C-alpha cells in the first residue's frame, strides 16, 4: 500500500491520544494525496476502472479469491503465431449486507500477496476489505494501459492486482424468514 498503509492503520489504533491524533492528521493527509493522485491519473482510466475507484467496499467480507489461467482460442493462423494463447483472470467475490459483488479482473501479471505485519493484532477471522488504492502499473507504462489495485484486508494482508480491464457484477441475496418470522439474509 502506498497511501493507506498497514503501519498507518496501526498508528490510527494507538491507545496513546497524541499518537492517535497524529495518525488522524496523517490519514487526512493520505486521503488528500490519494485524491490528488486519482485526479492526476483520471484521464487515463477507462470507465470501468473509474467505477472501481468509486465503489465503497470497506467492510465487505471476502467470500472467495481465485486466480484462473486457461488456454484461449486465438484468432490468427497458427503459422503466424504458433504458441498457445492464455487468458488469466482474477475473480473476487465480496459480500456487503445483502449484496454480493463480484470483481473480475483481466490480469496483466500474477497477483502479488503481501503478508501481514508481525505486530498486526486484529482478528484474522472473516477476512474483509479495509482500504484500496488504484494506480497505474509502473512497469508497463507507457506502452500498455495496465492498472494496479492494492487492497488492504482486515487480517493485515494486502494484495496487488495488476490488470488491464475489470468487470463488476452485483446482485441482492434472497431474504429468507427465520422460524420466528423475522427476515434475514439467506
Amino acid at each position: 500500500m502506498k497511501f493507506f498503509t498497514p503501519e498507518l492503520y496501526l498508528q490510527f489504533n494507538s491507545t496513546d491520544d497524541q499518537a492517535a491524533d497524529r495518525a488522524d492528521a496523517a490519514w487526512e493527509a493520505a486521503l488528500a494525496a490519494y485524491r490528488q493522485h486519482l485526479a492526476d491519473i483520471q484521464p487515463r482510466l477507462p470507465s470501468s476502472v473509474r467505477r472501481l475507484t468509486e465503489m465503497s467496499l470497506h467492510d465487505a467480507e471476502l467470500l472467495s479469491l481465485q486466480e484462473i489461467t486457461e488456454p484461449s482460442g486465438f484468432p490468427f493462423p497458427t503459422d503466424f503465431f504458433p504458441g498457445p494463447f492464455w487468458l488469466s483472470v482474477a475473480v473476487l467475490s465480496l459480500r456487503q449486507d445483502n449484496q454480493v459483488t463480484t470483481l473480475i479482473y483481466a490480469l496483466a501479471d500474477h497477483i502479488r500477496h503481501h503478508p501481514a505485519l508481525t505486530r498486526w493484532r486484529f482478528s484474522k477471522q472473516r477476512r474483509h476489505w479495509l482500504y484500496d488504492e488504484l494506480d497505474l502499473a509502473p512497469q508497463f507504462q507507457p506502452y500498455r494501459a495496465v492498472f494496479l489495485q492494492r487492497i488492504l484486508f482486515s487480517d493485515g494482508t494486502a494484495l496487488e492486482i495488476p490488470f488491464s480491464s475489470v468487470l463488476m457484477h452485483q446482485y441482492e441475496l434472497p431474504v429468507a424468514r427465520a422460524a420466528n418470522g423475522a427476515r434475514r439474509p439467506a
Partner: protein
Amino acid sequence: MVKGESLNQAEAEARRRLGTDVVVCGPSLAANRKLAGTIETTANGSAKRCPPHDSAGPHALPHYQPDPRPPEGHTFYETEHRKAR
C-alpha cells in the same frame, strides 16, 4: 453519516448490541474517540478503530467496529473537521 435522535450512553450501547449504527458528536476529537471506544467495547467487547475512506464520501467518519464481527454496525465519531449531517 446522518444524525438521528439523541441517545444517552446506555441507550447507545444497547443500539450497538443490536447492530445499529450510532455516532458520537462534539467538538473534541479525543473526547469523541474515547467515548465511542467505550460504547463499542462495552457493547461488543473487542473493537478496532477505522479511519474514513474517500470512496465513502465527504461525510464519512472514523469509527469503531467489533473485531471480529458480528454484530454489524459501527460507532462513528466526529472529528474537528468531519461532522455528521
